């Protein structure tokens, strides 16, 4: 046999998919490859010191192909170089955690022999450029991360942030993202069960699109993505490789500039949910067939990351023959093939000799499966083109050797100024409180999100018990009494003012939302959306937020089983708010008996408030709406009190005392009461009297954390209050649910608010549709 490193094959016979070369072999530069210069290295996002490391690993100058590989694998998106050291601070273990961080998705034991795989992922940069495809492929990618674990996707959630909706550009981005999330999930047939959206000018130009997916499997169906078994063939499965999304991972690790929406289009991928649905069914059938060892999505950094990560995890090597990869167009170079982020592609490690069986399953689903390489024992990631070695890199240093940085972090001066701002004047309302509340309901942050989730199929799979619109979505597990609640939460304003408290608040609110839905908070997936960490004030935000998250997750016993980091969310040097989104899941032991909703159930029920009211206006929606600023101290979070509150609420639900439960969050107590009132088909009246001697603006609209509204039957009031107090939770009966169509009235010693509930309901539901039907709403500016 000729030395494959020197003799290019010619003629029509394709090169075998099973070439290998000694680790000492030196890959040849391809004709036409650019020369490796300092400038080219910098263009690939590698610093001089990182490039020195590359030279040390290889013992020579990299080829152009190799430079591209390092660029992708050592990008922030794949290598986590600015976040890895901080992420180690997060709690990741618990007896119920089956798979922690490092795999395609985290996996937890949910009882009855069942396991749940779940993860959240960002698609911020692509969505800023092309909102529909950016969001759609975000959903596609996270679904693949779930079913490559062997789990069938059963729910998705989306966590979104945009600039204010008075700009046509933001309406275009928002409408496009919602349509993209919807079309993809709807077509694949996965119900959307919840999520959140928030509008603030800090997200102008840099929308946040985080998609979370949840999958269900029997425990023994779990499969991990480790390339093992020397000689096992690697097969490319699914869609063909094209020139779209090349260097998407590196793109996602840079700041955007004003003209990026045109020049960056080729780096955005295009999704095909129909192929995804076929790939989903084929993958689950493959995993069940026993013909394969491992399977991984070709996601960020495409074939490069899929193959090298599988090799790294398996402690093996891999060789790939580029001429074997099914491509959409001829003339693609190894560099392009390796870094393409074409969607709906998988890399499968089959058992040797089972290639035909694998192919048969794929053919049934009208998909291709092509052997493209094999697992080797030399520990190297080797790429051949027609038998010629074009890249040879030790796999472990490539996947795990990315340098990690701990950077300097200092609080930004602008934040200090904003925090110090005196908000005392706010407490004196101008005009009456009723009208102040009506104008608050014109905020899309507080109003109904129905316009969004009516575009999502929420009931397909016939397992949705609680649909979007409340505290958390709830699904049942067929054949079991159990179920799962899921939510995503984060208030970026609090995080900007105080990243540590803000992150604690995000974890606490997520847990509170689950508890209000009848679930025990179980585990977390996180999405850290931040600006450029090379800037000290951003690194400060990142570190503080991780510390706050670590503290809260440890206390709530909700380990972090995986997630995603999205840094460099800046446009023209201006960063988004630090937005560490928490995706949390919780288990319900008896979903039929315990699944809880926020809407009031019956006239005459008593309304209880658990938790404490305080005079906190910092970072509130009221302040943003009234004065257009984000200032003051973020609401403080007392984690121990929070835990007591959650135990009490869950106990009240499980004992069947609570008839509704609702978290009190943005827009304060008045908004939360309104949500409970209009949460049923016919809006109920509300008669509430608070005894707190606080300024009414703070009492009604302040966003003090750690509060829950319950409704109980009149005869259960004493019992409920006793149960709450037994847990050490302040609890008072504050009023009663009124007749449908009656008045919405909140009184306190220092002020009152009274409105027709019909008017409240109308405004609550009209706000978002009205904003989106403005002239050119939803169309490009």
């Amino acid at each position, binding site marked *: 046999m000729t030395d494959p490193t020197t003799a290019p094959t010619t003629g029509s016979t394709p090169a075998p998919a099973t070439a290998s070369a000694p680790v000492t072999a030196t890959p040849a530069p391809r004709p036409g490859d650019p020369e490796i210069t300092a400038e080219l290295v910098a263009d690939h996002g590698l610093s001089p010191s990182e490039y020195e490391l590359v030279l040390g690993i290889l013992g020579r100058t990299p080829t152009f192909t190799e430079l591209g590989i390092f660029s992708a694998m050592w990008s922030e998106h794949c290598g986590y170089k600015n976040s890895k050291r901080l992420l180690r601070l997060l709690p990741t273990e618990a007896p119920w955690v089956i798979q922690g961080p490092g795999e395609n998705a985290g996996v937890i034991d949910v009882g009855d022999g069942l396991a749940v795989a779940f993860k959240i992922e960002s698609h911020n940069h692509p969505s800023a450029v092309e909102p529909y495809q950016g969001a759609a492929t975000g959903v596609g990618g996270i679904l693949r991360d779930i079913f490559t674990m062997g789990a069938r996707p059963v729910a998705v959630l989306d966590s979104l942030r945009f600039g204010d909706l008075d700009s046509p550009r933001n309406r275009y981005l928002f409408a496009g993202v919602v*349509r993209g999330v*919807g*079309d993809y999930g*709807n*077509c*694949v*047939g996965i119900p959307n069960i919840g999520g959140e959206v928030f509008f603030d000018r800090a997200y102008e130009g840099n929308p946040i699109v985080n998609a979370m997916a949840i999958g269900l499997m029997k425990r023994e169906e779990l499969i991990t993505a480790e390339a093992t078994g020397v000689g096992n063939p690697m097969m490319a499965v699914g869609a063909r490789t094209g020139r779209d999304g090349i260097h998407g991972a590196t793109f996602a690790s840079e700041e955007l500039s004003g003209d990026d929406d045109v020049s960056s289009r080729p780096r955005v991928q295009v999704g*095909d*949910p*129909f*192929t995804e*649905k*076929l790939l989903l069914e084929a993958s689950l059938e493959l995993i069940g067939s026993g013909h394969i060892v491992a399977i991984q999505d070709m996601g960020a950094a495409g074939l490069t990351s899929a193959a090298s990560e599988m090799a790294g995890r398996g402690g093996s090597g891999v060789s790939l023959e580029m001429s074997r990869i099914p491509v959409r167009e001829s003339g693609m170079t190894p560099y392009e093939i390796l870094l393409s982020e074409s969607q709906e592609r998988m890399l499968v490690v089959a058992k040797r000799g089972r290639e035909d069986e694998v192919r048969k399953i794929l053919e049934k*689903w*009208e998909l291709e499966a092509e052997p493209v390489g094999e697992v080797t024992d030399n520990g190297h990631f080797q790429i051949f083109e027609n038998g010629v070695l074009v890249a040879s890199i030790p796999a472990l240093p490539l996947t795990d050797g990315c340098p990690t940085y701990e950077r300097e972090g200092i609080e930004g001066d602008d934040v200090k100024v904003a925090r110090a701002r005196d908000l005392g004047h706010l407490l004196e309302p101008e005009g009456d409180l009723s009208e102040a509340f009506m104008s608050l309901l014109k905020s899309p942050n507080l109003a109904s999100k*129905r316009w969004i*989730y*009516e*575009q*999502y*199929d*929420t*009931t*397909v*799979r*016939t397992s*949705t*018990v609680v*649909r979007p619109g409340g505290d958390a979505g709830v699904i*049942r597990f*067929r054949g079991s009494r159990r179920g799962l609640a899921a939510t995503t939460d984060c208030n970026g304003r609090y995080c900007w003012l105080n990243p540590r408290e803000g992150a604690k608040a995000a974890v606490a609110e997520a847990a509170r939302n689950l508890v209000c839905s009848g679930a025990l908070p179980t585990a977390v997936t996180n999405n850290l959306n931040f600006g450029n960490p090379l800037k000290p004030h951003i690194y400060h935000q990142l570190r503080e937020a991780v510390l706050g998250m670590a503290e809260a997750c440890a206390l709530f016993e909700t380990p972090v089983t995986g997630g995603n980091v999205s840094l460099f969310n800046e446009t023209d040097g201006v960063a988004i708010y630090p937005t560490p989104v928490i995706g949390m899941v919780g288990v319900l032991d008896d*979903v*039929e008996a315990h*699944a809880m909703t926020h809407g009031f159930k019956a006239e005459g029920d008593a309304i209880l408030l658990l938790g404490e009211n305080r005079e906190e206006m910092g970072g509130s929606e009221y302040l943003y709406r009234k004065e257009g600023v984000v200032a003051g101290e973020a609401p403080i979070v007392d984690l121990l009190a929070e835990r007591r509150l959650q135990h009490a609420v869950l106990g009240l639900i499980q004992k069947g005392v609570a008839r509704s439960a609702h978290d009190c969050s943005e827009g304060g107590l008045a908004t939360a009461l309104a949500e409970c009132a209009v949460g049923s*088909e016919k809006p109920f009246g509300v008669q509430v009297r608070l005894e707190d001697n606080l300024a009414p603006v703070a009492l009604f609209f302040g966003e003090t954390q750690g509060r829950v509204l319950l409704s109980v039957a009149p005869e259960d009031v004493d019992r409920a209050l006793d149960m709450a107090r037994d847990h050490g939770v302040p609890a008072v009966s504050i009023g009663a649910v009124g007749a449908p169509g009656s008045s919405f009235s909140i009184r306190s010693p220092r002020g009152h608010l009274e409105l027709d509930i019909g008017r409240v309901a109308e405004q609550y539901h009209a706000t978002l549709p009205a904003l989106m039907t403005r002239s050119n709403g939803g169309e490009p500016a």
Partner: protein
Amino acid sequence: MKVAVITFPGSNCDYDGYQAFKLLDGFEPEFRWHRDAALGDVDAVFLPGGFSYGDYLRPGAIAHLSPVMEAVRDFAAGGGPVLGVCNGFQVLCESGLLPGALLRNPSLRFRSHDVHLRVETTRSPFTSAYEKGAVLRIPIAHGDGHYTASKEELAELEGEDRIAFRYCTTEGGLAPESNPNHSEHHIAGILNPARNILGMMPHPERAVEDILGSTDGLGLFESLRAHLSGTLATQTP
């Protein structure tokens, strides 16, 4: 009573339909693949929702050419009951087994929420268990549900009592705001002239258990079961 649940590539309500039939004693649902040229020995056919063949060209446009649809045509021609829901309804219209067409929702947005349906006729294998005029609450989830047909076809549907369900208000009234896709004559579901084929956009299979929020869809399955057991009983010597 065997029910063939048809799976096209891209169907995503096939499993939900299967589960709904499983809930009722007497039904034995079985999956059939789009390439199957024969249905085998079955008593009814369920064409599920989803995005068969990715909705390429138009919803249902490719599915109606698949081998299994030949078999469904033959089955229906022999009087066998066929229920098409959502994409299944679109496939039936594309196949010419039902008149008219389903166009993009005028809002240009996918709509997913509960709707109210008024039962317009009880003279069918699918609606006999309901009372005429009854109001049902059942989810919809579609982007292409705007029913349209020629004036003549609409007149026929009306004149022959072949409109099975109309979108209505909670009280059963007809109003533009309770017609989620502005369908002509508020049509949510129709029958063929022989009354053995029903196509409807709302999803009765999603409204068969309390835990899902409604059991108003059960009547369809109960009607079909009564129809089939009646048929079978008369066949017994």
